[in-house]
């Protein structure tokens, strides 16, 4: 089996073969001293996302080699400098001084084969990158990357258990409690197995929500991507921080009860831990180094840990876990062509032993393997599952969304319009065996990073059992969750990728020029890769049959590169330029409510900043949502009218939850940075919105003690 290190070396060779060593004849417009200083600055500010060997990962492109030269070869060194100066570091764009950006530019040029010259780079060099660099990565940079050694944002972070807990009378979480959660608890990522993100509490209601006040807050780890939601059981809040730190807090007071810093330290954007799970007497978390942990809920000690996948090959975890029928079920991400392909797996909740595994990329000769055209197995990439699934206890089925295949664009991927199973599907898997019950392909041949990976909401309409989901294209889907049959769909934001849909099957038809796409040619797509909808989850208010959806409005032009076959390391391999969505007056945020019985849009509103939290609705006819501009608000569920707002210290990002302790209802929400495209798009496009580059925290609100 090919190791990640070997594949990097192969990639480097492929780079050399792709780029004719047109020996650069021009000295680089920078000095040796700048390149040396730049290497250190790169390690401190960039390597966490782009890797020590500049190979990139996830949405973070490679900064050396063929991919870099394809993007930047024809552009000037100045343009590259202007780009990184205005967009990087991620979440802290423009925060470094000019000299540091110049040094980093110099280093990246040397990493692509450029040689230093006598004149220092001052940001103004108009020479083309290809005139000084050829994409040949020096050996000392191209060597296989150890796990990123960039300095953590939390300097001096001590790993391991820093506080051992001693929680008395902890009530184990039973299967019955997960099937019928107590509204005083918030036991599951999105409230219940069906992903309603709804609280049955109603002490806080549309009449008194204006009186909400902060009860306590708790600073969380800095660094990485904070996009989590607390889990609460019996007055204890379990909280996943970045850097794989798990904490138990007294949910009423915010007092720390235990803390275990599992590590590794967050050094890259893909370090979000969107949720954790509780079951029996344990807390479960999938750490970013693709390990699954079970911690003792009373003490925080590690009970068992198991490897989901080999993180040295680049695998990662971000999406949280679900515990169902005694099994911890988890996805996998950053599947970039390394072997094995991406998969969903399940582990015995008591022992950590793997019970089953379902591969989300079909190989040749397997069912679905003929849906990749001529793409060889080792170039079939993507199919990540970075949002935890849902579960129907009656059918014993777990429902998962699968992300897109990679490279993003059909022309790069060379798969034509083929479905590339099981990318962009809903999978229905037997939770005991992992056996595929059915799948539905939402977007065969998807080509703009508009994947269909998000929460699968299980809604019953009388005797009809449905599963609903909304993907990045902004299409709200309704399927029969017993059979997978298409039932209905509704567009929720403007989109121009599909020219039509067969309303009997849900089959989408691409715009003609999308089908005719070629590499190295710009093509428009609305919504952008931030999605019409992205990871911030929907909420379903059953009493009103309303699904409230946080939506994003932006567009992009995309360009796909030629991707060498058989490198075994497949990146998104493309470029992107963003623009405001037509007809939105520059408003990137939209919140909309749909009646799920007939898919009727009931209300909607727009605002400048996009929403970066899921929605929480409650039996008090109020719903909560937060945004990029630091506003956390309560709205009237049935009308969308804003009833209360609060301005928090930085971007409100994560999943709001509600719980009760000693008869008092609380609302909790996190603030955080990172968040992938939904965060990076507004940070680039909304120049008037300024957020501190720190401030990860959890905030807990409730009514005043004497309020009705």
């Amino acid at each position, binding site marked *: 089996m090919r190791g990640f290190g070997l594949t990097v070396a192969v990639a480097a060779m492929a780079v050399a073969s792709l780029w004719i060593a047109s020996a650069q004849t021009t000295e680089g417009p920078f000095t040796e001293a700048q390149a040396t200083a730049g290497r250190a600055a790169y390690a401190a500010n960039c390597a966490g996302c782009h890797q020590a060997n500049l190979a990139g990962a996830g949405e973070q492109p490679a900064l050396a080699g063929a991919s870099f030269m394809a993007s930047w070869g024809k552009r000037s060194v100045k343009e590259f400098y202007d780009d990184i100066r205005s967009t990087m570091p991620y979440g802290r764009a423009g925060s470094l001084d000019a000299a540091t950006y110049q040094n980093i530019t110099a280093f990246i040029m040397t990493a692509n084969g450029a040689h230093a010259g006598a004149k220092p780079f001052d940001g103004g060099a108009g020479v083309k990158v290809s005139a000084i660099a050829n994409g040949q990565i020096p050996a000392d940079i191209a060597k296989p990357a150890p796990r990123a050694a960039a300095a953590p944002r939390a300097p001096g972070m001590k790993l391991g258990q820093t506080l051992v807990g001693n929680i008395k009378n902890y009530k184990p979480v039973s299967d019955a409690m997960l099937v019928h959660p107590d509204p005083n608890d918030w036991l599951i990522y999105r409230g219940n197995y069906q992903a309603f993100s709804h609280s049955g509490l109603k002490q806080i209601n549309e009449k008194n929500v204006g009186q909400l006040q902060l009860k306590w807050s708790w600073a969380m780890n800095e660094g990485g991507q904070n996009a989590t939601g607390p889990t609460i059981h019996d007055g204890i809040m379990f909280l996943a921080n970045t850097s794989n730190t798990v904490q138990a807090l007294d949910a009423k007071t915010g007092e720390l009860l235990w803390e275990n810093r599992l590590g590794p330290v967050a050094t890259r954007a893909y370090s979000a831990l969107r949720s954790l799970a509780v079951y029996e007497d344990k807390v479960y978390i999938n750490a970013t180094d693709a390990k699954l942990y079970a911690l003792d809920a009373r003490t925080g000690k590690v009970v068992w840990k198991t490897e989901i996948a080999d993180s040295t090959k680049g695998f990662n975890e971000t999406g949280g876990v679900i515990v169902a029928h005694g099994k911890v079920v988890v996805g996998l991400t950053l599947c970039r062509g390394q072997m094995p392909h991406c998969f969903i797996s399940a582990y015995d909740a008591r022992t950590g032993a793997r019970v089953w595994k379902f591969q989300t990329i079909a190989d040749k000769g397997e069912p679905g393997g003929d849906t990749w055209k001529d793409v060889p197995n080792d170039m079939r990439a993507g199919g990540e599952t970075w949002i935890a699934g849902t579960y129907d206890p009656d059918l014993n089925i777990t429902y998962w969304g699968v992300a897109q295949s990679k490279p993003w664009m059909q022309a790069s991927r060379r798969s034509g319009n083929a479905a590339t199973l099981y990318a962009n599907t809903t999978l229905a898997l037997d939770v005991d065996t992992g056996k595929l019950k059915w799948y539905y392909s939402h977007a065969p041949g998807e080509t703009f990073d508009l994947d269909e990976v998000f929460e699968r909401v299980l809604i019953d309409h009388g005797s009809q059992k449905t599963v609903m989901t909304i993907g990045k294209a902004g299409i709200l889907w309704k399927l029969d969750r017993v059979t997978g049959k298409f039932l209905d769909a509704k567009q929720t934001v*403007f989109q*121009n990728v599909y020219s039509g849909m067969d309303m009997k099957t849900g089959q989408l038809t691409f715009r*003609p*020029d999308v089908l005719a796409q070629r590499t190295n040619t710009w093509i428009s797509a609305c919504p952008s890769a931030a999605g019409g909808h992205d990871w911030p989850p929907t909420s379903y208010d059953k009493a009103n049959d309303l699904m409230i959806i946080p939506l994003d409005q932006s567009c992009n032009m995309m360009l796909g590169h030629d991707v060498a076959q058989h490198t075994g390391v497949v990146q998104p391999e493309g470029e992107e330029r963003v623009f405001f969505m037509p007809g939105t*007056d520059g408003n990137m945020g939209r919140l909309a409510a749909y009646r799920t019985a007939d898919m009727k849009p009931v209300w909607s509103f727009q605002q400048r900043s996009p929403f970066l939290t899921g929605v929480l609705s409650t039996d008090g006819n109020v719903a909560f949502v937060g945004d990029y501009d630091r506003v956390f608000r309560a709205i009237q569920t049935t009308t969308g009218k804003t009833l209360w707002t609060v301005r928090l210290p930085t971007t409100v990002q994560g999943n709001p939850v509600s719980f009760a302790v000693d008869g008092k209802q609380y609302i909790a929400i996190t603030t955080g940075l990172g968040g992938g495209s939904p965060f990076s798009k507004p940070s680039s496009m909304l120049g008037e919105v300024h957020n501190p580059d720190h401030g990860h925290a959890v905030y807990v609100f409730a009514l005043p003690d004497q309020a009705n």
Partner: protein
Amino acid sequence: MAGMMRWPVLLAVLAASPVWAQTYASRLTAVAYDGAMRANVQGDGRATATLDGKTLTVTGTFADLPSPATSASLYSGTGIGIPGPAILELKLNGQTDGSLSGSFALNAKQLAALKLGHVYVQINSQKAPDGNLWGWLLPDHPFAGANVPVEGHGFLPQLDVPGNWTQK
């Protein structure tokens, strides 16, 4: 297949359609950009266009361009949000702040493109010769205000994607 229509059918449908919007409007914002381009495509503007029969009258303003404007035109692509070639040149007044205007007798193809939302205004400038600001001319509609809920979808410009999956 439901939802699949071709151009001749679309034109026939448009010809038989009930009253279409007579006033179109757009906010003018940065063309598609990346980090390297961002500094050169800043600015803001608005354009409105009134259709009287086949005569389209366009007016607009712009401000805060990073470099002087050099030209402005109506462009038309194959869909909303899809760039295409320039079709009609606008008169430009001003440099980094200014106005634009024009009055045109549209031919059948241009009229159809306008009604489908394919026509957009683009301003080019010295530092952004391939485009500084742009905005698609879509039926003018009131904006209720930030965070003010409206019934249903609100404005969702799916003008050229037929099929009930987009309807209210």
